[in-house]
């Protein structure tokens, strides 16, 4: 007893530099990997990193570090961490921060800053990164003393991962990293000193009951599943609720994988390039149950014409989403899982959906997802390439994508069966996201096969990170759907600008993607016809030690359908030309 008392009272004082404290704080948060690139202002922090158990992945461009951290977070459900220097290092990571903000991805970004005394003097590599990122972070900190480092890091992780997740930036002046502090670490949330941050609230029982009543009388309900369902790990609850009630499910671009694509109740993705049945079911529904979705304009089309007959139940952890775009009849602030559990506990259910399913099934049968017959000679159909990769892929394969036509086709034609297997840039639409996100995902889930379905335009924006992948031993697979164009822009110019193609041609051969891949230590393959396509996919699937890049030569005239033109009503959905005679 006496011994224990002595042990408890003898506080061991450990003196650390701010830099050491920063690394130790990251260790305390359970960080396993940091994506980053050093420079002057962050130099002190890179020194103790040598002695740390935390892995560091040295990127070739800070944008890569940010997207890798996002890919890591989306694949693992844990916050991604990136570390960069001040000035240009910090501004280079602004795009991923903005991207993570739009997609509510938990990130902690550490930036070096010039020394405290130099702040405000236009010092070398000074920039006001907390000012720059104020509007695109969930929160940010400029650390004012070494003593504050543990609190800032702990608060950053707490804020990034609770409530509606998002990116948090911690800016650390060089002198503070170099000065001494007495090591401590916040032992509780109270010690984080966040009097204005209350991410969790009790479920409002009245509203849960009101929603149950709306569900009970609904005849044409739709479960509109958004990214918040994945963020709150509610897939199991969603499956149980959907199966018990028999309601149709749609999953947004951010929620692909939250509900199995193979499930009979799944109508697929809604929105601008959504499935006909998914889009139309929303238009005709009498009850729209939004589960962690935010009524994005890519889903709603023209807002006054969106789901015009529907009552709306809006479930979100972020109450600022309520009535932002669409007025909710019942708004419930909660994570998705808790609400679904409460509804299940109360046996919330509509009475009879037979008539509704008859209508829906007719839409599904009339307008399934289609594309033109693959040509035996000539260029590949991008949809066929994606289906072929998917068919040959191991179950649980993680897919990332860039932004453009290939992204939409990947979302449409890959069949996602579990959470965390589809990683893309939704809200921001950041070209170049795919390759680094794949690297981050693979770093977090080395047991999984990771394919990046990329566009030729996107690939050229961040391809240098394949050097990172090769040197760090992160063997991802990249499928470039090389249509020689900024294809999505080309599609709009073809359809809405009288085929006047302005600055969208890229060339299929420049760069030479195979040589480029090889120069980066990857295996480079090319497929110009169906036979080569299957062979290249098979070869890629045998390579598990280095990254593989396949240059698939695809038909540039292919367009993504269905399509709702920007600003048009979802009622005016354009189906694939093959289906137009039928209507």
């Amino acid at each position, binding site marked *: 007893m006496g011994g224990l008392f002595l042990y408890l009272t003898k506080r061991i004082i450990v003196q650390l530099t701010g830099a050491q404290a920063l690394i130790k704080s990251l260790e305390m948060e359970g960080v396993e990997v940091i994506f980053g690139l050093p420079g002057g202002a962050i130099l002190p922090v890179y020194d103790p990193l040598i002695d740390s158990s935390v892995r560091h992945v040295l990127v070739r461009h800070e944008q890569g570090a940010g997207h890798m951290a996002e890919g890591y977070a989306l694949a693992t459900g844990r916050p991604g961490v990136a570390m960069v220097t001040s000035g240009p290092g910090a501004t280079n990571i602004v795009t991923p921060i903005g991207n993570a903000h739009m997609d509510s991805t938990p990130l902690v970004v550490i930036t070096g800053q010039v020394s405290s005394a130099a702040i405000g003097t236009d010092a070398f590599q000074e920039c006001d990164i907390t000012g720059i990122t*104020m*509007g695109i972070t969930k929160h940010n900190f400029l650390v004012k003393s070494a003593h504050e480092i543990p609190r800032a890091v702990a608060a950053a992780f707490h804020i990034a991962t609770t409530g509606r997740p998002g990116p948090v930036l911690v800016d650390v002046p060089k002198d503070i990293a170099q000065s001494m502090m007495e090591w401590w670490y916040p032992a509780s949330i109270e010690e984080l000193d966040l009097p204005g941050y209350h991410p969790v609230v009790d479920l409002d029982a009245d509203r849960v009951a009101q929603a149950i009543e709306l569900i009970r009388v609904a005849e044409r309900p739709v479960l509109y599943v958004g990214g918040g369902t994945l963020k709150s790990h509610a897939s199991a609850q969603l499956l149980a609720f959907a199966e018990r009630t028999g309601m149709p499910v749609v999953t947004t671009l951010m929620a692909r994988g939250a509900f199995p694509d193979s499930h009979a109740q799944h109508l697929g993705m809604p929105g601008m390039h959504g499935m006909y049945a998914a889009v139309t079911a929303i238009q005709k529904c009498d009850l729209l149950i939004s589960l962690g979705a935010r009524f994005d304009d890519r889903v709603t089309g023209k807002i006054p014409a969106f789901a015009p007959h529907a009552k709306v139940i809006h479930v979100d952890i972020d*109450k600022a989403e309520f009535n932002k775009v669409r007025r909710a009849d019942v708004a419930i602030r909660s994570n998705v899982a808790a609400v679904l559990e409460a509804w299940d506990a109360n046996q919330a259910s509509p009475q009879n959906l037979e008539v509704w399913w008859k209508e829906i099934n007719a839409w599904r049968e009339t307008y399934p997802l289609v594309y033109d017959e693959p040509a035996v000679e000539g260029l590949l159909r991008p949809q066929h390439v994606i289906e072929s990769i998917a068919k040959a892929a191991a179950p649980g394969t993680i897919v990332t994508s860039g932004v453009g036509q290939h992204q939409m086709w990947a979302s449409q034609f890959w069949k996602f069966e579990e959470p965390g297997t589809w990683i893309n840039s939704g809200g921001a639409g950041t070209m170049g996201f795919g390759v680094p996100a794949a690297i981050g995902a693979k770093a977090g889930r080395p047991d999984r096969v990771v394919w990046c379905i990329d566009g030729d335009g996107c690939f050229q924006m961040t391809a240098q990170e394949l050097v990172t992948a090769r040197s760090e031993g992160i063997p991802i697979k990249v499928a470039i759907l090389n249509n020689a164009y900024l294809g999505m822009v080309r599609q709009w110019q073809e359809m809405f600008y009288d085929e006047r193609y302005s600055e969208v041609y890229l060339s299929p051969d420049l760069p030479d993607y195979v040589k480029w891949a090889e120069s980066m230590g990857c295996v480079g393959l090319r497929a110009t016809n169906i036979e080569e396509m299957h062979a290249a996919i098979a070869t890629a699937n045998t390579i598990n030690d280095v990254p593989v890049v396949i240059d698939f030569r695809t038909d540039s005239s292919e367009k993504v359908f269905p399509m709702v033109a920007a600003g048009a009503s979802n009622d005016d959905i354009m189906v694939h030309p093959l289906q137009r005679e039928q209507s």
Partner: protein
Amino acid sequence: MNTPEPFLGATSHTPVRHHILSVLVENKAGVLARVAGLFARRGFNIYSLAVAPAETKARFSRITIVVDAESAPLEQIVEQLDKLVNVVAISDIAPKDALERELLLATIKTDVDNRTSLLDVVGNYGAAIVDVDAGSVTLMLAGTPAACDELERELESYTTLELHRTGRVALPRLGKAAVAADPD
């Protein structure tokens, strides 16, 4: 000496479309920029804004923002504000329940001809002379925003060298509690 009743103006409160948000924030560097930046990037209009340390605790400041609830629904403004980590509490004071005051300082050019009439104006409004020199006086009015508006109009017939207004601060009228705009 008897101070006359301060003139409350024709309308003694803010136009209906203006709402007064009383926002308690952490007293930290950059918080005002966060609040102002939020209004700018979401297209919410600020009609006036006043900031000062709140109560005795130096830990918090109070920002009184008069918002134009026509630029965006008040609910959106409040909810977006509430998401700022440094914002601790927001209360919404409806225009009719608000006790609002503002301070006006004006330096007016004076001469033998207008001195007396200016002093009358000062007396009528319950304003005060706070500085005087040979050719000018500085007067002060602490009153309702409407009274400040009226006085400002009255001063148009003089040569105003400088005029500053603080923007309003507000408390709910007694018995009319401010509504916690963010009950969570």
